[in-house]
């Protein structure tokens, strides 16, 4: 998810920096990825400094851990002052609750449920 979003944003002309704990993640971005790549963890202050998040207009966390995404987005908002911090959170309950802390959450589970519901509604069902 992170790599395809990064590539899309680069194509749209944005200046993008990707953080991942594994160097192999760079291969997902492709050899021609023009953005920056920093190896490290999403809640490590040094890593975030190296990625110059303080200068960012927006920050997105899409690791596979809901809790890591929520903590990282809050950290970047509170300490580094990035106004738009978005966390991917699979669990709908936590996604709703942590909106209270000032971050924005995107919940694929809720979105998929809504799309499935819509798909069913658009079928011509009997009865």
């Amino acid at each position, binding site marked *: 998810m992170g790599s395809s979003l990064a590539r899309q944003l680069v194509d749209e002309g944005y200046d993008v920096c990707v953080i991942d704990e594994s160097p192999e993640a760079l291969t997902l971005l492709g050899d021609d990825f023009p953005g920056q790549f920093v190896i490290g963890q999403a*809640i*490590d*202050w*040094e890593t975030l400094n190296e990625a110059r998040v303080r200068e960012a207009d927006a920050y997105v966390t899409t690791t596979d*851990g*809901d*809790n*890591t995404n*929520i*903590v990282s987005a*809050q*950290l970047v908002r*509170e*300490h580094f002052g990035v106004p738009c911090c978005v966390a991917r959170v699979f*669990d709908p*309950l*936590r996604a709703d*609750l*942590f909106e*209270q*802390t000032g971050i924005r959450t995107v919940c694929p589970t809720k979105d998929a449920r809504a799309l499935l519901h819509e798909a069913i509604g658009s079928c011509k069902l009997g009865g």
Partner: protein
Amino acid sequence: MFIVIIGCGKVGVNTARSLLNMGHEVIVIEQRKSRYDLLLEELGDCLMFGDGTEIWVLEKAGIGRADLVVAVTGDDEDNIIISQIAKLKYAAPKVVARVNNPFNQPTFDLLGIDATICAAANMLRLIMHELPAHKFVPLLTLKRENIELVELEVGETSPLANQRIEDITLPDGVLLSAILRDGKALLPAHAGEILPGDYVICLLEPGRETELIRTFLPEESPEAIQAEGEIDVHSGE
């Protein structure tokens, strides 16, 4: 009291045992099946299987009526999230969280989790205390209660060296609690005077350390001395 503990590793299980022995009502949540199976016989109904960062699991454990929530998993993000859920959603009266990696302490502080325990930082303090020569050791910090217990050396050139206890004046917000001489603690009333080479144990409000260090160790840099007693969170793991 009713206490919900999340994480049944060595810390969690020993906390649970002690609290149960004291007569408290305890529920421990563990997400590793093998660990759960191992401890089920001992803890019985006090042990629950599940991911303690999920709201429905916490609710099933009864977090809504908990007097104390203890987040002691081996994962710092999980401990932060549990503490925040307990405070934001359930207004838990007390929450205590474990900091596994001392580098994450600033993140706990930033996100308002004020009652934290970091084993690595506490061990460092006690090891410093055992060193033959140490100048300043923060022994205990109760952040929310706004009080600290520190130990510091009385330097040869300290203006307080060789003064009678009743004649000395300490900075505001500092209480002289004990004098360590030849490895033994003396109450101020029994020590008579402060000698160079003694160690003093003081209770103080956080933020008074610099003044206190200047008083007892006038030739040292207060900033450098304080940095020695803490894990340096800015120089990599």
